[in-house]
């Protein structure tokens, strides 16, 4: 019983870490690309700085979305999932006995 609960908790923590860790790669690369291109554009046309900057921030925020999704999933895995899974396990075992 303790072993099973331990496995549940460990797997939840492992899943949460992997989720945000892998999920943060995409937005990181994407936002880096966006900012580098924006810098190039500003360097080429310094007078368009305002428009480029606001568009870049907008795009960065949208690129961030997938990272935020993975963050939400890991928050759920850490704070919500262990309780629910442990309750399911306890109920299943008590119904077996």
């Amino acid at each position, binding site marked *: 019983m303790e072993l099973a609960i331990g496995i549940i908790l460990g797997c939840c923590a492992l899943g949460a870490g992997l989720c945000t860790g892998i999920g943060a790669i995409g937005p990181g690369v994407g936002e880096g690309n966006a900012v580098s291109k924006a810098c190039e554009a500003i360097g080429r046309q310094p007078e368009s700085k305002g428009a480029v900057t606001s568009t870049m*921030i*907008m795009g960065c*925020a*949208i690129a*961030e*979305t997938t990272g*935020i*999704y993975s*963050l*939400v999933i890991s*928050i759920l895995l850490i*704070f919500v999932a262990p309780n629910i899974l442990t309750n399911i396990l306890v109920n299943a075992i008590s119904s077996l006995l």
Partner: protein
Amino acid sequence: MTKKNRSFIALDVLLIVLTLLPIVAVLILKVLTNVPSEGISITGARVFFTLPLPLGGLPITESQINSAAVILSLFFLCLYMTHGIAERPNTRRQLLVEWVVEKTESMVSDSMGSFFAGYAPFIAAILALSALSSLMSLFGLYPPTSDINIVAGWAILVFILITYYKLKGGLGNYLKGFTEPIFIMTPLNILGEVATPVSMAFRHYGNVLSGSVIAVLIAAALQGLSSLLLGWLPGVFGEIPFLQIGLPAILSLYFDLFSGCMQAYIFAMLTMLNISGGFPEDEYERRRQKKLLKKQQKTKTND
């Protein structure tokens, strides 16, 4: 001082008090009903009571009450700002309000086109509501935007508007739009349609929630660190969480101020882009011309 002036000032003060009152009331409610918790605890919004309704109970939560407080506060703020406006601006607040209105109108007509110029009040309302809701966490209150139900409500409202303006091009064209570019893409297109409000809601909610979760974790970590450093002192001195003073404010600057305002801006921007992007302007114009022509012919035959 004339009598009229005095009553004007009295109304001003009354409106300021009414603006601040909802926030103060929510703060008092929070202090009165707060349950001290041991260690790190991240829970959803607290349920105050449940309204018994025929189709299951309707829980009245902290986020609902907080967002109602924000709405009331904004309402009285608007009344205060527009109190005593004149044709020739003579007060500072009128100039400020005119600047805000002009900025919003130019933003809306820039990104939505002249057809949607009347949408400026709606966009401004969404912006102000979202920004103030997120900024509530500065007072230590539960920000309503970190509850997905509140944000999902706004997203559903936007989704209804998007669909309404897509239907302006005719029901047949709307349904035909799902089979573009080829009919095999229909399931994907339907998914994409549903994904718009879902992604809008999750983006806003996830950003605000992650900010508050990180703030709680940082506060707990700083408490642990300061008790580790000062734990050997006897009595009360060992329990002073001196690292918690001021340091979380730096994080709060990013997560509450910058992220909150940013998300409000993005939500409003996406609302504008989605509503005006889905609107088939050529098709609508064509249908309107046709209708006008028909009307003219009818009046001609009647004559």
